[in-house]
């Protein structure tokens, strides 16, 4: 990383490169990509929860003027390999969950497609269904391994002994609901098969189909890798673009069924682009959700607060169609020291659609339980909750014994306490009242791990006096367009205006998706290596057309360390004694994020995560009506599913303590997309306890749970 003040871009406040396009409405999102004479798709979705399609009568739809095709399992192109059960659609009569895509109508206009879809009659043979999540479900199972590849269970020492030795224990159950991501941009796809195009390499085999997709995607490279085996195509036969994404939060991380549905429909009309954008209601059906959890958390501590035992037993929902096992127990294994520790994960199989990544999957629900339990322990011990956390800060990673590459949780807690005015907090609940409002403060720690990233590359090419930097990265509104440009400028030792960034296309060098808060350090590393390779090869005066590639690099030494980002969240709330309404009057996050590439976009990432944390704490809950014959989320619009509005977020501030960490790679950045949400609901719940004396262990904290 250069420190030359004449070229140093990293660390500077920069407005978004894509900002003007976005605020003027001219950034072309997937659905707005220009196409000639497109056809429009509206899906047929199952209205039962489990069973088989007996018959589909599409005669009325087919008879409607403007209808081009009705796609069902009866005429769907065959998929070649069942490498992903979520994408392997329309290959049988089976219905796995309510709202599953079982077909589609394609028509000349969106309106005709939608109307025609309503005319299709589907008969089913229903089967016994189960959508009711409950602990101790008879079919719950141990998944063996959970997301990120770690074991579902862990055990060190003897927790019963640890609890028996404890002066004080906590043993409570915490619960988090289903949530749906609901980015502003609904999932959108355009798919077009081009039979005219001859493949150069395999031309001997004759014409080979070529598929072009415009998608809203967190990563086109891995999206393509997932689609290829199902479609039986080679990489050069599939092109995916996604230059702008209107929010994703994990829901666009991997392709969901709507991509395959559009691809299959388009296959029936080669040469014609087929477009589909989900309705808001459909966003609650088949593009993933955050699973629901039931978490028993136990803590034992000596009288001085030193933890003797930690146990965390998680039961969480899962789709029978496709397992998604969040690493809800992960943070519990690493954040605090204790000689005796045990965690477990059990999946509850249900006839629901697949869950997927949603902002800090695993860490978010798990840390709600852990950081609320820690607050409960502090109350029982009569100890300040910050002091309790400081006393249990581990010297090395409690699970592996590895040293931390960097660990500044203590600084975050202490600096946050100072900035927030923690000393004004009264430990006794209900000690502060203003009019009808009870006021309180709460704190929670945050941690988010370094995720391993599959291969990622970048390229640098010199054309017409500019350095064109290419990588199949994605900007979900995160600032990737801007920070990658800054990183490239410094690595090439040129001003930012000499760098032209290209992202979001499969023609660009393969890159891991935007997920796990890896984007900046992973893509950034590839860009830096490509820049170094370019300069090594061509020097400071390259010729037109010079080009070099590079792969993301991480030091071998990093394996010797535990790599995590840290943070602390401080919440101040007021709770109405009349209505039970909660207002988060202040929220402060202090982070240990490694190097900050761009303080402006970083701040937006942090406060965006914190805002989503407020939203999860106070509002968000997908109500799955699990009665037989229902089996789906019924509050599936923005009147029923509340997301924080401006008035709910009056004062949200982020600060950071910048210690670049080279073990995360050459950028020194730790990744900040998710740390901002982790622990926020716990901080708010702990503040509610401080205000009211009432402990809430289930999200969200609605007036119904507080009014008396």
């Amino acid at each position, binding site marked *: 990383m250069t420190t030359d003040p004449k070229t140093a871009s990293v660390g500077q406040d920069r407005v978004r490169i894509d900002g003007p396009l976005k605020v003027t409405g001219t950034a072309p999102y997937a659905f707005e990509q220009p196409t000639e004479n497109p056809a429009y798709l509206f899906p047929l979705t199952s*209205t039962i929860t489990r069973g088989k399609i007996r018959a589909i009568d599409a005669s009325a739809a087919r008879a409607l003027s403007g209808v081009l095709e009705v796609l069902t399992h009866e005429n769907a192109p065959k998929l070649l390999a069942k490498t992903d059960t979520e994408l392997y659609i329309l290959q049988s009569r089976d219905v796995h969950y*309510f709202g599953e895509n079982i077909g589609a109508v394609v028509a000349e206009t969106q*309106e005709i497609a*939608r*109307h025609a879809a*309503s005319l299709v009659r589907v008969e089913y043979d229903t089967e016994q269904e189960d959508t009711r999540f409950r602990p101790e479900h008879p079919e719950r199972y141990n998944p063996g391994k959970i997301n990120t590849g770690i074991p579902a269970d862990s055990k060190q020492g003897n927790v019963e002994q640890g609890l028996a030795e404890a002066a004080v224990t906590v043993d409570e159950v915490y619960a988090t609901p289903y949530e749906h991501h609901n980015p502003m941009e609904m999932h959108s796809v355009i798919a077009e098969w081009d039979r005219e195009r001859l493949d150069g390499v395999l031309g001997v085999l004759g014409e080979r189909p070529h598929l072009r997709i415009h998608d809203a995607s967190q990563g086109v490279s891995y999206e393509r890798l997932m689609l290829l085996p199902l479609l039986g195509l080679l990489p050069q036969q599939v092109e995916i673009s996604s230059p702008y994404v209107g929010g994703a939060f994990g829901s666009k991380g991997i392709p969901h069924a709507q991509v395959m549905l559009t691809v299959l429909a388009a296959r029936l009309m080669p040469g014609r682009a087929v477009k589909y954008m989900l*309705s808001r*209601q459909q966003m609650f059906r088949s593009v993933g959700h955050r699973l629901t959890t039931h978490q028993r958390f136990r803590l034992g501590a000596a009288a001085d607060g030193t933890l003797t035992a930690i146990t965390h037993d998680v039961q969480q929902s899962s789709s029978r169609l496709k397992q998604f096992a969040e690493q809800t127990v992960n943070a519990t294994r690493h954040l605090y020291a204790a000689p005796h520790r045990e965690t477990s994960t059990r999946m509850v199989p249900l006839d629901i659609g697949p869950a997927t990544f949603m902002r800090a999957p695993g860490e978010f629900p798990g840390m709600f339980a852990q950081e609320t339990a820690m607050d409960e322990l502090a109350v029982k011990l009569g100890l300040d909750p910050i002091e309790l956390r400081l006393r249990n800060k581990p010297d090395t990673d409690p699970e592996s014994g590895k040293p931390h590459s960097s660990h500044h949780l203590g600084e975050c807690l202490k600096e946050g306490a100072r900035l927030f005015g923690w000393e004004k907090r009264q430990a006794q609940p209900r000690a502060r009242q203003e*009019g*009808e409002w009870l006021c309180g403060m709460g704190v929670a720690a945050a941690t988010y791990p370094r995720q391993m990233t599959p291969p990622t590359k970048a390229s640098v090419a010199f054309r017409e006096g500019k350095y064109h930097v290419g990588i199949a990265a994605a900007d979900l509104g995160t600032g990737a367009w801007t920070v990658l440009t800054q990183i490239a400028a410094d690595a090439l030792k040129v001003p930012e205006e000499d760098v032209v960034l290209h992202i979001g296309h499969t023609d660009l060098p393969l890159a891991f998706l935007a997920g796990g808060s890896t984007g900046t350090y992973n893509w950034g590393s590839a860009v830096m290596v490509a820049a170094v390779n370019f300069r090594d090869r061509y020097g400071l005066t390259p010729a037109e057309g010079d080009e070099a590639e590079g792969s993301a690099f991480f030091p071998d030494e990093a394996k010797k360390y535990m790599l995590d980002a840290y943070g602390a969240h401080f919440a101040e709330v007021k709770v109405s*004694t*009349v*209505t*039970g*309404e909660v*207002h988060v009057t202040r929220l402060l996050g202090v982070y240990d994020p490694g190097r900050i590439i761009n303080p402006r976009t970083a701040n937006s990432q942090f406060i965006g995560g914190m805002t989503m944390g407020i939203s999860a704490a*106070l*509002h968000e809950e997908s*109500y799955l*009506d699990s*009665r037989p014959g*229902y089996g*789906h989320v*019924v*509050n*599936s*619009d923005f*009147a*029923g599913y*509340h997301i*924080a*509005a*401006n*008035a*709910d977020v009056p004062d949200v501030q982020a600060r950071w303590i910048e210690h670049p960490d080279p073990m995360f790679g050459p950028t020194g950045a730790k990744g900040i997309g998710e740390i901002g949400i982790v622990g926020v609901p716990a901080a708010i719940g702990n503040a509610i306890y401080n205000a009211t004396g009432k402990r809430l262990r289930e999200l969200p904290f*609605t*007036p*119904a*749970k507080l*009014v*008396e």
Partner: protein
Amino acid sequence: MKPFDFQRAGTVSDALAQFAPGSAYLAGGTNLVDHLRAGIREVDGLVDISRLDLTEIAELPGGGLRVGALVKNSDMAAHPLLRERYPALAEAILAGASGQIRNMATTGGNLLQRTRCVYFYDPATPCNKREPGSGCSAIGGFGKYNALFGASEHCVTVHPSDMCVALALLDAVVVAESEAGGRRIPFADFHRLPGDTPHLDTNLRPGELITAVELPAVPVAAQSTYRKARERTSYAFALVSVAAALRTEGENVAEVRLACGGVAHRPWRAHRAEAYLTGKPATAEHFRAAIEAELEEAQSGTENAFKVPLLRNMVVSVLEELRDGRTPQRRAEQGGAA
């Protein structure tokens, strides 16, 4: 969405003539268009009445106001005379929806808002209001918003409007026109309880067109207020809301009006509470006893049980504020958040 005819009316008589069975009048469209798009309402034709000359707020002899049916919600809430004479009404309007929606939504349309029950909006589920005879999914289902008063085995939902709660408080009059002539409908007779016909929200007849809402002179309403409890600070339907007006003489209640939202299939005027309280000392104990008298009629399930203490607390709090002249303070605390 089924294809439909679209006509634009230039006058009230045009509109009445253009209306046919299966038609609907389209004004601001903030509710009806949602229904069409969600596939929970089909029409053969829309008669666009948004250009009719019904946008005036005029003074009535004796101190009332006549509000044209097409006055936008935001204009109504901002009207100086309305704010002075009926603060609860202005507050109620501003507590509803969002700024963008209030700029589109009309007075007449607000009266005709349909329920926000999640099952009404979900065509895959039974709902007697949407499909008579199919059943009520909210019984035993997502029940947080269910009614406390006047529900039936056929429908347990609540009326969604904030404005209408204040109109119930004021005994407003709905003026409607039809080919058969005009009529004036007292507000108490406008909305219905569900009974065994929950598909009917109001007593408006097919083809009848609301042209105005008249606000009578209600001197006590100068000391009135509206309070709404909801799950987020703005842009959410009421869990419970309360509109109240109070005049005390000495220590006693001389005159009181109380209307509640989020508790019944129509705006709920709390006559029992009013009757109890009139002439009693204006104390928290009596305010509480008054709403308890009203709550004797209430029926709640597990999911909406919280509405009982919520309503009780809010009524007591709002009446105390009115008694003590503290309502402007709460308005400031709420920061004008709508």
